[in-house]
């Protein structure tokens, strides 16, 4: 909200440095976003009349202009073309210094001497128009030689641009800002008393308002208070300069005296009003009712609005308050916008003024449903003062009587239909509670003194020294502060007011202490470790988009339905990702296009799946299937499935996963669509009988391998040969991986290290192709028992020697005992036990 200092001074004698006032406003929570000085540097500018316009040879943008500023012809060069001979324009003569410090000197352009400058609104910092020169023909009494500021009624001023918080409708007005500021500065604050009738001309139509119009409220739930005034003999015309200027400083355009008076009152007091042309209202009166479903109205902006239909918002039943004429025709959406049919026009002579109180929640819903936010709706939805209505109506009448000609006359009486309007909140506030929450030591009377200047009265009902319940204040909150709730919540609201008027910066500070230690959870520590492992493998962490396209979802291999954003920012990116693969591949492509595509990337993030059954109770949450995953793509030169496998080994090692297994993709425990050279990863707890008679219970952890070249190619990651690049891929559900209950870690208890020498045993087997090497390794480990220190695959060989459908797998076993050196007999026994274990299923044979 733009607040001119001169306007603030109507309410309290503010003086001093504008920057200081700005800082005070900030400290009150009325945050000043900008301080603008207006009208400064305009003292030298004069009104001039254009007498001659001539082209300059060799110039097609600038012209030679001869003006008269009262002392004979002055020749200037000007680049604007929006004026004609006879127009009045502002002239900054040689020697003038314009706002922003721009000094006007004598200049020569294309051989013509320019003795000054004709000014645009922007050059004078009055408007945003920098295109053309200001043409002042319509300015009343303006004449050549006159000071520009005098002709325009401009005085130097300061405008504070204030961001008013959503809970402070009272502060969204000049008077409201003045009240807070005056309270802090200890200045007297008064709203000048106006009398709408006394200040008007004498009523010559004689009649009271009842004789001129009628109002009926059929729905007092939506419109708890409605008042009407009638002003007759109105001559619609331009507003006086001072009023138009104030509106323009506050950021509003002057329309005509009637509309301007309404806007002026809204800016000054925060209460919207709506003037109707009484003669254009069917039946000469108003009826306020709830809109029927599907009823339409054309609003002032010329748009047809359909009313009475429930919107998408929660608990929205579609209630709109409709203002109709006495014949039932809609003439306005209550509290939001008037209709086109009863708009004030040039020929309006009788004005019916509506000043009302609408229920904030209903206005908020109507405004949201219609996507129609107006100055009025924004104020009503925050809550206007139901008791501020009379003052606002009086002020409007006073302004109109001043500006609408000598015949204007306010009819006697007010139609006032009053239902259930909010009444002043009264609540008890404990001084002890104030101090407990703020960490202060205020007495009850100090608290009362802080509240009084902002209009909140607080009476001490028990003195401070009367015991444990002492220092209770009975507080009465004026109706212009709808943000302050009744007891018990309201006590906190009052405490905020105490803190605010006292000054947050003056409140004490201390660092609290408690006995509980701060820490990360085990999961959080492990997640950090996991990321560090990836970094150690040369992978950098990326952050890709949560929002993906239909195509991305298909590429992720997940079938619909997907979780969909109902109001996406980009229409095509309306789904929540089911995989991070498309995002990471795109990130590689982005880098590839910049000749830096040899990279490894990973991301730890959430993927989303449509839930099997959404929860019924909204307080049940979370309502979707979400899991935190690690996804890594390995795209450096030479990377492939094996890079990803090596990464997995490093992770399993770093996390000390007790036992895990790798299963061919498409096998019983994996559901990897488009799997290519991939394997499902499982943590293994208890192993059930497999080909080697081992029992096991796998927990799926994710996938390791290589991305399907079809997906890589479809997403556009191509190598120099035009074919899809090979991309090593690791994708883990870390919610499961890092859960130590599902995925056991190696025992915490240390294992003694043997002091006796160990023996190595190399065993090569010809193993059927469908038996994974990992299975053989597990069988060996099992057979070796606690005498097997380590087992490692060291050679894989395929060829005729091994035979069709088989390959040779060579393992090195290191054998050792904790309490003696293994003798030949023991070693031989272990050897045959290991061989027997592997050969057991008939799918492998020692070579």
């Amino acid at each position, binding site marked *: 909200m733009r607040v001119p200092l001169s306007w603030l001074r109507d309410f309290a004698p503010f003086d001093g440095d504008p920057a200081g006032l700005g800082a005070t406003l900030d400290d009150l929570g009325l945050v000043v976003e900008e301080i603008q000085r207006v009208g400064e540097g305009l003292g030298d500018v004069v009104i001039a009349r254009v007498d001659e316009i001539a082209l300059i040879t060799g110039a097609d943008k600038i012209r030679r202009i001869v003006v008269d500023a009262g002392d004979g012809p002055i020749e200037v060069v000007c680049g604007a073309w929006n004026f004609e001979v006879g127009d009045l324009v502002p002239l900054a003569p040689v020697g003038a210094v314009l706002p922003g410090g721009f000094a006007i000197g004598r200049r020569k352009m294309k051989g013509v001497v320019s003795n000054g400058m004709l000014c645009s609104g922007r050059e004078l910092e009055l408007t945003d128009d920098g295109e053309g020169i200001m043409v002042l023909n319509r300015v009343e009494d303006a004449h050549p030689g006159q000071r520009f500021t005098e002709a325009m009624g401009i005085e130097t001023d300061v405008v504070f641009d204030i961001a008013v918080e959503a809970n402070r409708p009272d502060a969204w007005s000049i008077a409201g800002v003045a009240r807070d500021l005056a309270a802090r500065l200890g200045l007297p604050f008064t709203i000048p008393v106006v009398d709408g009738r006394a200040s008007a001309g004498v009523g010559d139509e004689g009649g009271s308002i009842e004789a001129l119009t009628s109002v009926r409220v059929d729905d007092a739930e939506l419109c708890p208070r409605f008042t009407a005034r009638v002003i007759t003999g109105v001559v619609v015309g331009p507003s006086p300069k001072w009023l138009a200027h104030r509106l323009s400083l506050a950021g509003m355009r002057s329309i005509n005296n009637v509309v301007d008076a309404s806007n002026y009152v809204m800016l000054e007091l925060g209460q919207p009003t709506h003037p109707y042309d009484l003669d254009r209202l069917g039946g000469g009166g108003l009826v306020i009712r709830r809109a029927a479903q599907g009823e339409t109205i054309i609003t002032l902006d010329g748009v047809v609005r359909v009313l009475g239909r429930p919107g998408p918002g929660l608990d929205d039943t579609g209630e709109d308050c409709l203002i109709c004429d006495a014949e039932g025709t809609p003439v306005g959406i209550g509290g939001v916008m008037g209709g086109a049919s009863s708009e004030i026009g040039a020929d309006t002579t009788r004005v019916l003024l509506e000043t009302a109180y609408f229920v904030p929640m209903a206005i908020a819903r109507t405004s949201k449903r219609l996507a129609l936010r107006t100055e009025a709706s924004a104020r009503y939805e925050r809550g206007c003062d139901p008791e501020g209505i009379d003052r606002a109506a009086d002020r409007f009448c006073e302004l109109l009587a001043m500006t609408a000609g000598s015949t204007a006359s306010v009819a006697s009486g007010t139609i006032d239909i009053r239902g259930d309007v909010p009444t002043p909140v009264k609540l008890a506030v404990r001084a002890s509670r104030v101090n407990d929450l703020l960490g202060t030591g205020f007495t009850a009377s100090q608290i009362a003194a802080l509240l009084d200047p902002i209009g909140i009265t607080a009476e001490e009902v028990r003195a401070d020294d009367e015991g444990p319940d002492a220092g209770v204040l009975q507080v009465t909150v004026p109706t212009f502060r709808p943000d302050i709730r009744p007891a018990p919540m309201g006590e906190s609201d009052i405490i905020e007011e105490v803190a605010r008027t006292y000054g947050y910066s003056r409140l004490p500070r201390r660092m609290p202490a408690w006995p509980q230690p701060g820490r990360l959870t085990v999961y959080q520590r492990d997640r950090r470790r996991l990321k560090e492992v990836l970094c150690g*493998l040369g992978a950098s962490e990326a952050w890709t988009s949560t929002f993906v396209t239909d195509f991305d979802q298909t590429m992720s291999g997940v079938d619909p339905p997907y979780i969909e954003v109902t109001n996406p920012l980009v229409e095509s990116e309306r789904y929540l990702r089911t995989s991070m693969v498309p995002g990471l591949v795109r990130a590689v492509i982005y880098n590839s296009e910049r000749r830096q595509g040899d990279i490894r990337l990973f991301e730890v993030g959430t993927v989303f799946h449509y839930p099997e059954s959404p929860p019924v109770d909204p307080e049940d949450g979370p309502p979707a299937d979400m899991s935190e995953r690690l996804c890594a793509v390995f795209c450096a030169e030479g990377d492939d499935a094996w890079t990803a496998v090596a990464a997995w080994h490093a992770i399993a090692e770093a996390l000390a996963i007790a036992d895990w297994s*790798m299963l061919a993709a498409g096998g019983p425990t994996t559901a990897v669509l488009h799997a290519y050279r991939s394997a499902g990863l499982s943590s293994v707890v208890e192993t059930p009988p497999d080909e080697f008679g081992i029992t096991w219970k796998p927990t799926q952890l994710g996938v390791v391998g290589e991305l399907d070249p079809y997906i890589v190619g479809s997403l556009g990651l191509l190598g120099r040969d035009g074919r899809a690049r090979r991309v090593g891929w690791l994708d883990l559900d870390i919610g499961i991986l890092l859960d130590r209950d599902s995925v056991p870690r190696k025992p915490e208890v240390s294992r003694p290290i043997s002091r006796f020498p160990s023996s190595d045993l190399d065993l090569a087997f010809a193993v059927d192709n469908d038996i994974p090497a990992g299975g053989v390794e597990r069988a060996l480990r099992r057979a070796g028992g606690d005498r097997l220190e380590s087992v490692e695959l060291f050679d894989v060989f395929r060829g005729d020697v091994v035979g069709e459908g088989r390959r040779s797998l060579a393992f090195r076993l290191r054998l050792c005992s904790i309490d003696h050196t293994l003798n030949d007999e023991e070693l031989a026994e272990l050897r045959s036990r290991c061989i027997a274990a592997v050969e057991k299923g008939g799918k492998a044979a020692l070579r």
Partner: protein
Amino acid sequence: MSTALDIDGLVKNAEVAISAARTTEAIRQVATEVGGKRSPLAEAHRALGALEPEARKELGRLLHEARTTIDALVERRRTEIRFAEMQATMESDRIDLSEFIPGTVRSSPTRGHLHLVSQTRDALEDVFVGMGFEVAEGPDIETDWFNFGALNIPPAHPARGMWDTFYLNLGTPESTLLRTHTSPVQIHLMEAAVVNGGLPIHAVMPGRCYRRDTPDARHLPVFHQIEGLVVDKGITFADLAGTIEVFTTAYFGSDIHSRLRPAYFPFTEPSAEFEVTCTICHGDGCRTCSQTGWIELGGCGMVDPAVFDAVGIDPDQWTGFAFGFGIDRCAQMRHQIADMRALNENDIRFLRQF
């Protein structure tokens, strides 16, 4: 010219040949045989010139139809073969990944980098852990109740305009959403604490949030916040201001301080905006801080009694404060990142700087 040109037979023959093709190479050959320059079809076409205009028109139409049919058959078969070959390649390329021999994979010559947002988040977490906070997390998708209702923001509350919300197609319209702030984690924590007797709470809650803002140099629609919540006995606004100050100097440096000024949040009362000394000019006033010497960082306040009421905590026994601010914003300030969008472009040159 023979009038016995059997177009149907021609198409049938082609069909047989096409379906007999088993490889990409074979289908290429068949395509030439049935549709190429020397195919019966092409010859019949060439012969059209010799016909009477009427007959030419009729036969031309038939030939065109035959051509369309054959082309479609070839294309379909080609796709089938390509798919089958892909399947076969996959099957034959299948390898046993447990045949991994340690030491055979080239290790990376360079170390990777954690994302700047992660680094910033970790650093912030570490500062708060040092101050006695635990770290809690919550889901990205929330119901209206957790994101708004329990935080004293009922439907149609004007304050909802403060957050432009992404809604999801789950349940009744506007009942499920992407969280607009990390504050719903507060509700989860407090509800759990009430059920499990887990009070007091001293926790920070980092996480990803979503607002329907068009991305620009200072805003991303997906961003990260860290939230703090203390619920304990005897907690005051002074503790809040002290905590903010200790954090500010610990994270930004000993010459960076904090100040609070009144603000409005539905879930805190009293509420405050907190500002820190401008990290660019160290308080002297510059363009970044609009000559004020201060930069707005986040919001905070004493937990509103309505929030305590929603989760079932007795506000006369327990008091608390909460605060929240942007993790990305901290990174932007500390590393003087001109355009926030650099954070999710994933340019490796950017990622490797930190």
